[in-house]
């Protein structure tokens, strides 16, 4: 490596006023989201060893820069951060609502860089577009009369009943419409412009689809009679005991507990769906499988103990030493198998390895893992040297050189 400082993991690197001497002292710049340079420092870019730079933007050195780390919401009564800045850099989404103030704000700024999405009323879009120097996301315009909802919109019958007129909703997140209310949807919703997903009860599906305008996400229809459960769900003996022929539609992973008896599963569950997967002890397979839609959903029936690797993990030999019997590994995150684990141990102790994430191991261990592979939707890679870089300067939001 050349002599000099290495700089990494910087959101905004500002070299507009830097000197030749400073540039000469830098060996490498890695992982910078945006590099700002001025006409006077433009020639320095070619001299820098730059890696993983998302954007480099010219901004005159004398222009005042205002950076926002996070979302910016320009509403009629409030233009954030105390007023317009000369050059705005937004490291997040920008939500703009139609008003005189927001229109003036857009006129006053000299330039705009947004590392996220912009939601903008149609009438302001031309003014906005003339100011955008860089947009690392989408510009989503919406009708001026649309009601902008940031995040998730949960539509209920009472919510719609409270509205006297039909209105259009522009939703940056998801829409949930689980209460049966097809009539109210037809009468009180003019249109739905949704960036995320729509989750709706089967009874509402037709009405919701008729109102969707330019939707990008999909529509997930929850079958009639199913209760929606958001996030992961553990159905252990206690949880199942409270159900009587329950039908559950879960947006996360469903795990059926090892303490569940076949009779309890038979009595408690009538139907089970998951957008992610259903993980169930092999001993309950005969009953639980009949409650699932095995064509639409992903199900894993496991033998022995369940070892979940959903984060960044290293599997050491000691884990096998302090446990007994077979285990099933389910990898959704990143698993590194330490060289101290004997391939024979992997082959004998794992009943199955389901890989939805990433497994790194030695070539010898790989053979053992492959012999036990069940679901393979991830990556199985040979161990390599860690490629982590050490930075002299790193993890900065805004760095001015």
């Amino acid at each position, binding site marked *: 490596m050349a002599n000099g400082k290495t700089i990494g993991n910087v959101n905004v690197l500002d070299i507009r006023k830097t000197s030749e001497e400073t540039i000469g002292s830098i060996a490498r710049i890695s992982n910078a989201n945006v590099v700002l340079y001025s006409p006077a420092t433009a020639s320095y870019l070619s001299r820098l060893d730059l890696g993983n730079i*998302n954007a480099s933007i010219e901004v005159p050195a004398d222009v*005042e820069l*205002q*950076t*926002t780390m996070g979302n910016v919401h320009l509403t009629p009564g409030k233009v954030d*951060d*105390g*007023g317009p*800045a000369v050059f705005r850099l937004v490291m997040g989404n920008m939500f703009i609502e139609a008003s005189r103030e927001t229109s003036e704000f857009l006129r006053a700024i000299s330039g705009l860089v947004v590392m996220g*999405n912009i939601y903008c009323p149609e009438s302001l879009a031309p003014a906005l577009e003339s100011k955008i120097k860089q947009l*690392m*996301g989408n510009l989503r315009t919406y009708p001026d009369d649309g009601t902008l909802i940031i*995040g*998730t919109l949960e539509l209920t019958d009472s919510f719609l009943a409270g509205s006297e007129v039909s209105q259009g909703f522009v939703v940056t*997140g*998801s829409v949930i419409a689980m209460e049966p209310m097809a009539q109210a949807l037809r009468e009180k919703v003019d249109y739905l412009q949704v*960036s*995320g*997903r729509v*989750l709706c009860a089967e009874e509402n599906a037709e009405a919701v689809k008729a109102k969707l305008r330019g939707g990008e*996400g*999909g529509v997930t229809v929850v079958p009639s009679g199913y209760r929606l459960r*958001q*996030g*992961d769900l553990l159905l252990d003996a206690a949880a199942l005991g409270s159900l009587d022929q329950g039908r559950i539609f879960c*947006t*996360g*992973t469903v795990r059926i507990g090892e303490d569940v008896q076949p009779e309890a599963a038979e009595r408690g569950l009538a139907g089970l769906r998951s*957008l*992610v*997967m259903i993980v169930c002890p092999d001993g309950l397979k005969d009953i639980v499988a009949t409650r699932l839609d095995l064509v639409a959903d*992903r199900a894993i029936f496991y033998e022995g103990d369940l070892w979940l690797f*959903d*984060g*960044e993990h290293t599997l050491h030999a000691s884990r096998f030493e302090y446990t007994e019997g077979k285990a099933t590994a389910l990898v*959704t*995150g*990143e698993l590194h198998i330490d060289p101290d684990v004997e391939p024979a141990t992997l082959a004998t102790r794992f009943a199955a390895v389901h890989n*939805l*994430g*990433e497994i790194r191991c030695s070539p010898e261990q790989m053979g053992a893992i492959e012999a036990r592979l069940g679901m393979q*939707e*991830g*990556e199985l890679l040979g161990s390599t040297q860690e490629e982590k870089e050490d930075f002299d300067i790193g*993890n900065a939001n*805004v760095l001015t050189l």
Partner: protein
Amino acid sequence: MDTAEQRAGIVADLFEQSKESLFRYALTLAKTIDRADDLVQEAFLRALRHAGTLERMNRHQRDAWLKRVVRHRFFDEERGRKRDQAAVIERVRRAKQPLYVEHAPALEDIIERVPERYRTVIEMRYRLGLNSREIGLALGIPSGTVRSHLHQGIQWLRDEQKASIR
């Protein structure tokens, strides 16, 4: 790779083929639909910037590439969240700790050493107890600039402190 149109076409095809499986994977990690959607969107934005690389890959390699982007982005965010939490805990811990430093320099002495361009906002913030907006109004500068000067002034003090320890 010739044109932006071709690049967009490759990514559009990839989006149609892989969006659902990628969403399902993102949901496995992220747990919430909105966050999973964000991860998927970021992965395809990144795909747009690397369309040339993706063009040379087969279907399986492209899917693996997209998943890797989602996974790395998710873990980066998680690490950032943990760092932020640790910083907050550390600040609370320090705030609760009694100050046993002998001959601790007076606030006036500390502020006097700060360069002129930062000193005013630091004085207004820590001596007068004004917030960024109030300081901005008083000085006629945006509150973002106030915060930036505060941050840089405090950073200058930290650097000074480190230098004095050495």
